[in-house]
């Protein structure tokens, strides 16, 4: 069939024709070039536009503020505070996810209940329950952990229970054929089969949690002596330390990138290695 043979050739020819030698560069160097150009534009705007340094900081000032923040320990304390709260919230969220999804996968009533509750809570922006958490727990870390755990729980349960429910029927029969029942079947067959969904759930969950904890800290301020990154940014704004506001944002973005890399690494060593990575 000549038509089906020529179609990909046309598509391939169209790529270099529009992009030139750009596509032949390795992906990391393409990104690096874009990054350098963007920082250049940023610096040019800050230096040449005459914008007030009280509302806008250039990359050099931000870099100085960022390095200074880490050097004097303030940024490190804020970052660790936020990560500690996020970590605790996620740990609680993961334990609850396992409990709820296994219950939902093994009993019909559990499945019905989880479907209903998650469809009710999922559309709620997770930071919206912060006032409620403050009523219940006061101005404490517990309130922030509660909000974060709630934020990660629902996207994870939706993904994981989908993964458990879509375990291939053949694998389930192989497991039952070996005499695996109940919890053993769940642990040895369904949970590993659900791993691709669990990892993408964890990815979505952490991203929800990350947004929520920063937003909650902005609203919440500080519980004790140490505030988190959200507090750091808001505090810097209050004292008109504009470069610090930018530096806080940079830290938040860098942590996001770093955690995403961790998830990619986990994925490559598990589901990609096992040929279970989904097309989606």
């Amino acid at each position, binding site marked *: 069939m000549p038509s089906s043979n020529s179609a990909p050739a046309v598509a391939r020819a169209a790529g270099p024709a529009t992009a030139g030698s750009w596509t032949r560069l390795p992906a990391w160097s393409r990104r690096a070039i874009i990054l350098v150009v963007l920082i250049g534009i940023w610096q040019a705007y800050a230096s040449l536009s005459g914008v007030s340094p009280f509302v806008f900081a250039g990359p050099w000032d931000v870099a100085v503020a960022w390095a200074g923040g880490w050097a004097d320990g303030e940024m490190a304390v804020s970052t660790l505070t936020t990560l500690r709260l996020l970590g605790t919230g996620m740990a609680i969220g993961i334990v609850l996810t396992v409990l709820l999804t296994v219950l939902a996968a093994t009993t019909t009533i559990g499945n019905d209940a989880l479907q209903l509750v998650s469809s009710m809570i999922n559309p709620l922006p997770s930071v919206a329950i912060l006032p409620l958490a403050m009523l219940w727990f006061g101005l404490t870390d517990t309130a922030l952990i509660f909000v974060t755990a709630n934020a990660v729980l629902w996207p994870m349960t939706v993904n994981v229970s989908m993964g458990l429910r879509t375990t291939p029927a053949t*694998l389930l029969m192989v497991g039952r*054929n*070996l005499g695996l029942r109940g919890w053993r079947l769940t642990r040895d067959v369904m949970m*590993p089969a659900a791993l691709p969904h669990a990892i993408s759930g964890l990815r979505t969950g952490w991203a929800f949690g990350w947004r929520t904890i920063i937003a909650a800290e902005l609203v919440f301020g500080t519980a004790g002596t140490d505030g988190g990154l959200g507090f750091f940014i808001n505090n810097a704004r209050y004292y008109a330390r504009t470069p610090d506001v930018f530096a806080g944002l940079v830290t938040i973005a860098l942590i996001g990138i770093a955690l995403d890399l961790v998830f990619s690494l986990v994925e490559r060593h598990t589901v990609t290695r096992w040929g279970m990575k989904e097309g989606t």
Partner: protein
Amino acid sequence: MTSATTVATPRDDPPSDGPLLLVDQVAIGYQRQGRHVPAVEEATFEVAYGEKVMLLGPSGSGKSTILKAVGGFLRPTSGRVVLRGRDAPEPGPDRAFVFQEFDQLFPWRTILGNVSHPLKVTGSDRAGARRRAVEFLELMGLHDVLDSYPHQLSGGMKQRVAIARALAIDPLMLLMDEPFGALDAQARGRLQRELADIVTRTRVALLFVTHSIDEAVLLGDRVVVLGGRPSRVREIVDVSGLDGSDAPGFAEARQRLRALLAEEGEDLDGAVFE
């Protein structure tokens, strides 16, 4: 006392009374959209210890349904499935299933893990499970891929792993649901010969679903021919000893089965001889 000297996997002597498996007037139906749809109207046959019985019939004749009932995955609507004198068996490792689908291996375990994990589940210690898994993988010619993952293997090799896994747990019966149905002709022919050889050596009983007459004659001692909708057992044909197309009686047995399937209106140039 008989001692099984030539048997690779010695097992308990069979109880003298009764067959290994009795499928007694079994009817099976499905629930579909609230309605009961009968799939198998009446099936009665036996499998003796170490016997190779083939379930042959056109598509939709309930072969796999009967196999799943023997495996314990489906309850018959009426009739009995009796294994070693016990009624209505639950799924268990005494009947090791091999499916047609290549995805029957656990993708997250290595080839070695896929074979040794079932052994650990059924009570072997770690070292023993590993030793036995390696032994059976070598038997199936898979010593090179012990540490590979299933997705790295061809379809034929995956089916070999599934057979090694099934044999390693030392079952009374192998239940095979068109295990070579998705393979190319060359791989299928090779695996059929190897399976015939290994089943004879281990004296494991075989209940094998196929829609290929040649496969049925080659591998089976007896062929249970199914037909009709819902299906019934048409005839049980003795094909023992016909383990090659040049064996005397091979052509006749094949002719007989062909005639039986032709009555079912099966397209003989298509699905039956591929």
